[in-house]
């Protein structure tokens, strides 16, 4: 059992608190992604789990024991860094073998293990090269190999793909996911890229300013965002947000139509925010939400994104790829009621 549990974790540097009361349970074998904007405390959380940083308050538990007072090497974890941290003066073989220096394995077993890992990562032919002779993707594989070779209870990844170009990133994303399915270790993966989070995670943890905003499966955080921050952060392009007020007939958009959306727990006159994803907002269907002129077209092939100016703000909607409305044309945008999201205007918390 290699679960990871964070209990009321807090971290203060000098006088600034960068983590507030982080609590999270990661099950054995789970792939959890921490995602959030730059500076929100993702790396700090990961470094506390690794033991590279001390928690100011709270507990870290790995495989059923509290590890707060254990050295990194005693925690049975491995970490892959953003800039790989593979040693330029050592061959690939030495780099991968580095993780075994302190293991109890016999020499032949070590060699066997090293070769297993190299084969798994498709690196057997590269073992005698120096890092300078490798491509970015290969270097990243060496870093992963070095982490894997010890077969740690938990893998920690800190933005391991952000130095790779887009195509390689997509490929490595898939490779890491496959690797996880094969080896089954617990993985905690940090990224600021929501696409990475959505595609790889069993569960996503969304952080902002050191506070957990939501924990859930990719589908949960996409379809049921807990607040406006999560709604805006997950999914590209971002969810459209429109100011509105609750009335007895439904939700009246600012300077716009009233949407027949009856919500029992709303008080009449309460200011709310209505959210709708560009994907769900289409020309001339469902509940009419807005009307305006097309300002920009963004053809994506099968479909076209249109930017529509509504009362001075831009709303993004989806249109057909073949016959999109022309720039300058006035369109009516609507969405199905079940695709509408409602948030409290003051707190940003989801209301449905």
């Amino acid at each position, binding site marked *: 059992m290699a679960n990871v549990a964070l209990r009321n974790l807090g971290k203060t540097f000098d006088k600034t608190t960068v983590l507030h009361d982080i609590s999270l349970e990661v099950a054995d074998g789970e792939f959890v992604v921490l995602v959030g904007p730059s500076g929100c405390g993702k790396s700090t959380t990961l470094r506390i789990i690794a033991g*590279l940083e001390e928690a100011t308050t709270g507990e870290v538990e790995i495989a059923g024991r509290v590890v707060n007072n254990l050295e*990194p*090497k005693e925690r049975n974890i491995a970490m892959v*860094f953003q*800039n790989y941290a593979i*040693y330029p003066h050592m061959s690939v073989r030495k780099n991968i073998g580095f*993780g075994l*220096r*302190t293991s109890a394995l016999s020499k032949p077993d070590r060699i066997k293990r090293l070769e297993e890992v190299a084969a798994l990562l498709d690196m057997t032919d590269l073992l005698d090269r120096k890092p300078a002779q490798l491509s970015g993707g290969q270097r990243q594989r060496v870093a992963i190999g070095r982490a894997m070779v010890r077969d740690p209870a938990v893998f920690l990844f800190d933005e391991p793909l952000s130095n790779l170009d887009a195509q390689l990133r997509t490929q490595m994303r898939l490779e890491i996911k496959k690797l996880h399915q094969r080896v089954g270790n617990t993985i905690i993966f940090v990224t600021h890229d929501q696409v990475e989070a959505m595609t790889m995670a069993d569960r996503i943890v969304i952080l902002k300013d050191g506070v957990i905003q939501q924990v859930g499966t990719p589908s949960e955080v996409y379809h049921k965002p807990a607040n406006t921050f999560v709604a805006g952060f997950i999914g590209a392009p971002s969810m459209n947000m429109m100011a509105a007020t609750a009335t007895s007939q439904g939700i009246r958009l600012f300077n716009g139509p009233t949407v027949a959306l009856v919500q029992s727990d709303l008080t009449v006159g309460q200011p709310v925010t209505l959210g709708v994803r560009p994907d769900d907002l289409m020309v001339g269907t469902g509940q009419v939400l807005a009307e305006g002129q097309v300002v920009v077209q963004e053809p994506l092939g099968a479909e076209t994104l249109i930017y529509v100016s509504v009362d001075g703000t831009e709303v993004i909607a989806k249109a057909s790829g073949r016959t999109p409305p022309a720039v300058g044309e006035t369109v009516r945008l609507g969405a199905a009621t079940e695709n509408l999201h409602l948030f409290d205007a003051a707190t940003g918390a989801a209301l449905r």
Partner: protein
Amino acid sequence: MAIVEAIRPTTDALMKTSAPKKPANLGQILRWLLLFAGGIAMIMPIAYMISTSLKWPHEVYNVNLIPREPTLENYTYVLEDGRFYMWFWNSIIIATITTVSNIFFDSLVGYTLCKFRFPGRYIIFIAILSTLMIPTEMLVIPWYLMSQQFGWLDTHWGIMFPGLMTAFGTFLMKQFFETVPDDFIEAARIDGLNELQIWWTVAMPLVKPALAALAIFVFLGNWTAFIWPLIVTNSTEMYTLPVGLSTFGDEADVAWELIMTGAAISTIPTLVVFLIFQRYIIQGVVMAGLKG
């Protein structure tokens, strides 16, 4: 400091070799002339050293570069004089031990000051740096009194103790360890190495060029040191090469031809040291060039 700067421009120079050739302009010609003048100024003393070592005593004060009747007599004399080997050996021992000691301690202290956060770290660093401002001449007397009290006068230890660690070396190493990313150190920590192992197997190999520069610098400095060895030694057997060479001749006359012969021979180890370590400097430059 000079060395930090001295190594870095070499990287740029290497990179620039691929730039397309442009026809020489006036500025470039001026630069070549300056370099040429500098080169001559550097080479002349060495040329005169070798020339003088090949002259007969009566020709020494003649400024001609080519000896009229060249002779190897001086070399035979110096090499047959047992004292030369004694001094040579003393210098080798002192320069070698001091170099090894500096490589070890300067880098250890530099690494600690660079990579560990502890209270007083900055003050310690400033204190070490500030000793750079004290000239050797001011330190010689306290060193002497100290050696006298401890009974270190006229011993190898007495000659080398002031130089076993240097503020400059510590500073140089600290600056170079700044270029080693913390991730490397943390990765090694997670892989289970203790702090000394991390320093030795991860950090040290990554600063090899700086270590090579430091080695050359310290070796040369101690090989040519004169004032302190002269003061702390009394007996001929304890002299280092520069001190010993200066005693060639008698009260009436300084035997320049013998001194120059000894000096010419004594440049050989410095050349060897330079050739050995220069390789690492170039390697380091190449490595830095390939990074990223």
